[in-house]
């Protein structure tokens, strides 16, 4: 039957592919046998069950041969292929590229609709986990605001065009040797795209090629170039590290390999195995790594090099480290003015690094200057570290900032006649001093391929709709170079094309389909004898094992070292920021990244980890600086730097470095779509090529006006009695101890439990089969928000918008409670520094549930396997259960939040989960649909459910595997074992609610702990609970 290519109307096209089974060896063998079903002789005497199994397998294989895989066209099913059961989800390995690094995913597809992205266990950067952003990308696929057609803007008019129109003129646009042609793309690790690029540049040798990513790790790359002569890619490993020193670095969250690093970090901090890496962080604003640090000192970003230099100085002076002669010039460091806190930090760190030669690692963040990276690389080399290097895939590439600068210059000079922009949004996110948008007007013909008709498209001649990552073929490389495949889950909803396809068109290639391009490229490079088999296997796996780049052993280049050290010295001599002339640090937003996810409701409503702000960015200011500048929390301030002025609300964040303010990029979009338009403040207006990350010497003035930031949690501006009480409670709710104290006295987490015997009014439930339980390890939770998005995607949780969040009506079932810990005795107006702890909080499924007893219509009930179930269609919405919930984890549908949802957005819904009506209470179900999906087949097979077979969405995606789920009736299950651990405790146990989710206490591992009792959970006097003992 003819392929249906243009399906814009319904958006419903079905993609078929191998199902997962197909790649098991037995199965492949069966496939090759062609008539497997006939081989009855070889079967043992069949029982009825075996017979059904064999029949089932035969049918499945019949389906595989019948559908004539592989087929490129995406064909709607007129007849259901045999072996394919509607309603049974399929999983496909694919990937997502962000900032030029591919992250492997496993996407669940329901009847042809991709509905949920999880991590690909085989992918080195994922290991089964997935970031919040990558999970939320699936919502972008169905975004009704995505552009649906080609647009031609000419002479003030706008015309709707088709691809054939563009194809007709493309040859004319890209004729000749490419003089006057420029291509601007985002960063990419795709070998296919590299091949197409080479072909394009071969066809058009004079064409300019520019790659720009607003957020990149170019400084790190340039730093290695400084000391090694060639750019290298740092591959940190922290599982074996005894000391991890982060200088403005956030390896647990802000790193392409952050999921792997977080997993390694969790392993390195496991107290039961005795491992105890110590984490030192110096940074200007709280990162998730900083939250988890044992030692943290908050200094302005521009002062971070000073601390690093002091550490180096101490290593040399006190720990007999020998630096290369060329590096000695850093010594000016010793003369720097330095605070007591910084000195203490540097001393402890230097001692620890000296004690862990070969097993320590110094990591520097992407916002630090190349010279700092270079110097840290020297220290790592000399000390010996767990850091390894691989070659950079594209060593000749100029840095992104340089590239966009060159392009802007070329555009300004009028030498660019034809500009092809593949993805990205430079009119919005290029450094402000380049005035990219204005220069765009100089270019006679500009073509922008983009998911949205965005800021850049609106200033270009052509807008081409881009295919979403889940709609297009492609490939990419992990951070370590592992080849990662990308396959479409669905035909392009809006007739989009991928960047490689458009580039191939511009190159005049014969083949322009993404599928053929990827295969062609792979065929050239892969040495596999059986290409089709190889192709099928890598599509199934999503990655190709063993394709990681080789580890290189770099040599320090003494000649260059001097240059690096000079650079460092000039940084050390720079003026210190002060409250009058503070530095403003521009960062990628932890949710909407550089702004490209601005129209994603899940991400906009995701509470920022530290501030818990949704739907906005805010200038983070330290309490002391705010007091000095007389700025209030929530006040709108004016930031002025180099002639640019923006107004932004302030969030006063304890633990922020004084005189250093942080503002996230990516907000203030004007053409993002209905969701993202005019949300927050555009910080790109302050960004320049000279200071893309840290703006020094800005002026910040209060305006006296205030703005309500929609936080999901109250922040610390609170009345005195509430402030004191909160401080008193935190230690009880989030239990912490030092590693030494715990090892000396494992009961340290329970010592302070005082309550009378707990007697229940009701008869206990009895459990014969399974009873589910959960354990959440506070020691490994890093607060990355991945579980929140996973839950939102899995459970059809609505996005409610800023107004509703302001009204405390957010709907997320799992939240990450954030508590600040301050020194005892400080009033709320004296706070400056603070420690932070996170606590994932979702329904704990109390055995003796207060909610169940008060519901007048019995809409919340205990199940026979111990779940506290919510029966939506029985609920009348009295909200009594929520009132009586001590954890306030229940969520109420105050309105019909799904009323105005676009048809496409509804396609994302998980069909296994009810979409809740207005007026109904809802809450975490422990992913009951996942439990049933395992239980039913297990029951059919008459076998017990294996431990780990059922994984709720939150636990599945947790990079540190902090969440364990399983059967409490099985003493061998992981969750039962974790219940046995001494760190295990139940929150609010004194209420006799008997939660099924327990927490494992958090441990710290400070170097200066005097002994076992130094940082134990205080015992006795209530006043001392929850306070840090300094």
């Amino acid at each position, binding site marked *: 039957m003819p392929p249906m290519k243009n399906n814009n109307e319904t958006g419903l096209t079905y993609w078929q592919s191998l199902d997962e089974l197909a790649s098991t060896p037995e199965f492949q063998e069966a496939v090759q046998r062609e008539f497997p079903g006939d081989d009855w002789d070889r079967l043992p005497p069949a029982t009825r069950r075996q017979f059904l199994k064999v029949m089932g397998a035969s049918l499945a294989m019949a389906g595989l041969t019948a559908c004539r895989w592989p087929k490129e066209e995406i064909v709607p099913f007129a007849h259901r292929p045999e072996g394919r059961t509607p309603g049974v989800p399929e999983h496909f390995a694919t990937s997502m590229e962000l900032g030029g690094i591919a992250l492997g995913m496993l996407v669940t597809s329901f009847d042809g609709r991709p509905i949920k992205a999880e991590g690909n266990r085989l992918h080195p950067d994922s290991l089964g986990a997935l970031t919040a952003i990558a999970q939320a990308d699936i919502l972008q696929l169905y975004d009704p605001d995505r552009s649906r057609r080609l647009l031609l803007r000419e002479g003030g008019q706008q015309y709707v065009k088709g691809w054939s129109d563009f194809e007709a003129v493309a040859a004319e646009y890209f004729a000749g040797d490419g003089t006057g042609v420029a291509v601007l793309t985002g960063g990419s690790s795709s070998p296919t795209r590299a091949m197409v690029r080479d072909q394009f540049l071969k066809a058009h040798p004079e064409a300019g090629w520019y790659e720009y990513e607003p957020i990149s790790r170019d400084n790190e790359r340039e730093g290695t170039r400084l000391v090694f002569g060639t750019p290298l890619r740092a591959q940190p490993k922290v599982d074996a590290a005894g000391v991890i020193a982060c200088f403005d670095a956030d390896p647990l969250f802000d790193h392409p390999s952050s999921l792997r690093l977080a997993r390694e970090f969790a392993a390195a901090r496991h107290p039961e195995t005795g491992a105890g890496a110590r984490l030192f962080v110096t940074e200007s604003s709280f990162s998730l790594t900083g939250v988890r640090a044992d030692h943290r000192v908050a200094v302005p970003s521009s002062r971070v090099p000073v601390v690093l230099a002091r550490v180096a100085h101490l290593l040399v002076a006190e720990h007999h480290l020998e630096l290369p002669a060329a590096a000695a010039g850093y010594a000016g460091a010793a003369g720097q003015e330095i605070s007591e806190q910084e000195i203490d930090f540097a001393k402890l760190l230097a001692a620890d690094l000296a004690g862990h030669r070969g097993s320590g690692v110094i990591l520097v963040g992407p916002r630090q200057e190349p010279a700092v990276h270079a110097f840290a690389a020297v220290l790592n080399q000399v000390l010996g570290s767990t850091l390894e290097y691989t070659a950079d895939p594209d060593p000749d590439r100029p840095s992104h900032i340089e590239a966009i600068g060159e392009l802007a210059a070329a555009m300004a000079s009028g030498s660019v006649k034809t500009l092809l922009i593949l993805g990205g949004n430079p009119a919005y996110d290029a450094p402000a001093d380049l005035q990219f948008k204005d220069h765009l007007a100089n270019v006679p013909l500009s073509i922008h391929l983009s998911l949205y008709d965005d800021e850049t498209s609106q200033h270009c001649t052509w807008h081409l709709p881009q295919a979403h990552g889940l709609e297009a073929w492609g490939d990419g490389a992990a951070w370590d170079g592992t080849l990662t495949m990308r396959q479409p889950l669905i035909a392009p909803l809006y007739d989009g094309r991928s960047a490689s396809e458009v580039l191939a068109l511009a190159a005049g290639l014969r083949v322009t389909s993404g599928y053929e391009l990827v295969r062609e490229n792979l065929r050239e490079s892969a040495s596999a004898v059986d290409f089709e088999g190889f192709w099928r296997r890598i599509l199934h796996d999503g990655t190709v094992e063993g394709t990681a780049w080789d580890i290189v052993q770099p040599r320090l280049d003494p000649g260059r070292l001097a240059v690096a050290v000079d650079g460092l010295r000039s940084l050390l001599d720079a003026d210190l920021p002060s409250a009058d002339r503070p530095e403003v640090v521009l960062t990628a937003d932890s949710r909407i990244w550089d702004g490209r996810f601005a129209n994603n409701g899940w991400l906009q409503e995701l509470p920022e980890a530290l501030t818990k702000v949704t739907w906005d960015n805010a200038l983070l200011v330290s309490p002391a600086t705010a007091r000095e500048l007389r700025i209030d929390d929530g006040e709108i301030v004016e930031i002025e730097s180099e002639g640019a002025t923006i107004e932004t609300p302030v969030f006063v964040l304890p633990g922020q470095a004084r005189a250093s303010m942080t503002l996230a990029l990516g907000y203030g979009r004007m053409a993002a779509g209905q969701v993202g338009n005019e949300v927050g403040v555009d910080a790109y207006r302050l960004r320049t090529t000279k200071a893309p990350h840290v703006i020094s010497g800005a002026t910040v003035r209060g305006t006296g006006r205030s703005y309500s930031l929609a936080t999901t*949690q*109250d922040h610390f501006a609170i*009345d005195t*009695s*509430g402030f004191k*009480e*909160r401080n*008193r*409670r*935190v230690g009880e*709710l989030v239990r912490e101890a030092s590693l030494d104290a715990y090892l000396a006295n494992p009961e340290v987490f329970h010592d302070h439990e005082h309550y009378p015997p707990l007697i229940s009014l009701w008869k206990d439930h009895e459990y014969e089969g399974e009873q589910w339980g959960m354990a959440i390890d506070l020691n490994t939770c890093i607060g990355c928000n991945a579980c929140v998005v996973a839950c939102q995607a899995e459970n059809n949780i609505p996005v409610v918008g800023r107004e*509703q969040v302001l*009204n*405390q*009506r957010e709907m997320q079932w799992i*939240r990450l*409670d*954030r*508590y600040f810990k301050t020194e005892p005795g400080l009033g709320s107006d004296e706070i400056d520094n603070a420690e932070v702890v996170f*606590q994932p*909080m979702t329904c704990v499924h109390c055995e003796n549930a*207060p909610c169940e*007893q*008060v*519901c*007048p*219509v*019995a809409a919340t009930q205990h199940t026979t396997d111990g779940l506290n179930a919510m029966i939506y269609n*029985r*609920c*009348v*919405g*009295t*909200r*009594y259960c*929520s*009132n*009586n919930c*001590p*954890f*306030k984890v*229940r*969520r*109420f*549908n*105050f*309105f*019909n939040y799904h009323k105005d949802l676009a048809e496409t957005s509804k396609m994302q819904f998980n069909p296994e989960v009810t979409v809740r*009506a*207005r*007026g*109904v*209470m809802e809450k975490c179900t422990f992913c009951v649909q996942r439990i049933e999906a395992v239980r039913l087949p297990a029951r059919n097979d008459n076998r017990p459910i294996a431990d780990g077979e059922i994984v709720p969405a939150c636990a599945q995606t947790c990079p540190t595997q902090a969440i364990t789920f399983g059967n409490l009736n099985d003493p061998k299950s992981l969750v039962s074992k974790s219940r046995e651990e001494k760190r295990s405790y139940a929150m*609010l146990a004194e*209420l006799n*609610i008997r939660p099924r989710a327990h927490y494992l206490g958090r441990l710290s591992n400070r170097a200066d702990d005097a002994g076992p009792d130094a940082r134990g959970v205080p015992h006795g006097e*209530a006043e001392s609970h929850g306070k840090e003992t300094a």
Partner: protein
Amino acid sequence: MSTPVSYLDNTGDDPAVRARLVVGDNDFHSVTEKVCGIVEQPKPPKFWWVAFAASSSLTLVLFACIGYLVTTGIGVWGLQVPVGWGYAIVNFVFWVGIGHAGTLISAILFLLRQRWRTSINRFAEAMTIFAVVCAGIFPGIHVGRIWFAYWLFPIPNQMSMWPNFRSPLLWDVFAVGTYATVSLLFWYMGMIPDLASIRDRATTKLRFYIYGVLSLGWRSSNRHWHRFEFAYLLLASLATPLVLSVHSVVSFDFAVSIMPGWHTTIFPPYFVAGAIFSGFAMVVTLIIPTRKFFGLEEIITARHLENMAKIMLATGMMVGLAYSTEFFVAWYSGNTYEAFTFLNRAFGPYAWAYWTMVTCNVLVPQIFWFRKLRNKTLVLWVASILINVGMWFERFVIVVSSLSRDYLPTSWGYYRPTAIDVLTFVGSFGLFFTLFLLFVRFLPMVGMAEVKGVMPQAHLDRPGHRGHGDYHGDIAGVEVV
């Protein structure tokens, strides 16, 4: 008796004489004339029309708010997590509380043979019914899916589902339902002889038939009176425990939960005392203008008002004692969550509500210690309104301040009502006053038969009891010594 200010002042405390319960030159006929006259006027007075126009407009506001709520969702109110109950439940408890005075006056005071109740009991009972009507609206509309609110009733159904008998909300349904039924019966039954009087005096056919039907064939025979009084006694005995139980059960909504500030054993007596307090305050608020406008000062006398002021003083003190006991127990129990809740009430974000409550409920009634003040109608009236305000805030403090800061500091919040919240509440007053105005226009607002029973004329045959027992005052025109 010291120098009487006017003949209307019967507040004196001379132990030798019983004060008169009806003053002025009244006999049975004049009482009938006065009370029935209001109903029989061809047109209600102007002030009635003004009041009715205002209150029925507010009733429309109520219905408009409810319509908006039903079509849009509970989100039109200011509720959120953690504060899942707000104005609706506050108003419910407030109105149920108001509804306490009527049955207390008619049943408990009846059993205690407090004869002064007769002038005001009809009025107070009517108020009770209307308050319970207003109260009944709120639990009905506060649920998320109003169209399924009937699931709260134990109706046999195709789902074979009973409601959850462990839930205090269900107990509420029974308690309030029983109370409303018994109160209505009690009120209506007590009214039958008076309805018959109006029927007998009817000058129009329509009135004759309507009141004829309503009076259920009452012929004032001896047997009728015998049955009537017996039934009245029985209903009074039935209603008496209900006065205590209904607000006790309402308090269980809170006391049975595990929220600090709610989970307290003091709640049942505390709620009942508060309910009587607020009920009397509302009776006073209503009766002062009514007796003035309808010229009933001789029947609803200053002494009645004074008695009610004394009850308010007593119950106000009980409520005050409860407030302090809560604080004491919060400290004495050693439960830190409880302790914080009370500290937070007094000094947290809702301190303004707490101190409004304390001022109105504890401080304001203290003026009733002074006879001069409690006998000043205007002072009494203003004080009663303040007590109503205070009692509304008491419920607000209990419901909202406890919920807003419970166990986990991360879920703490601050509840702000929306305009719809406020308009719904104001609208419920509209409904209340509308019903009340219809009552004073169409039904006898004073129990004539009972008032006549406490007039001296009723006891002419028992001269030996002069000054004792049932005998109140003297026959009109005969001066008291």
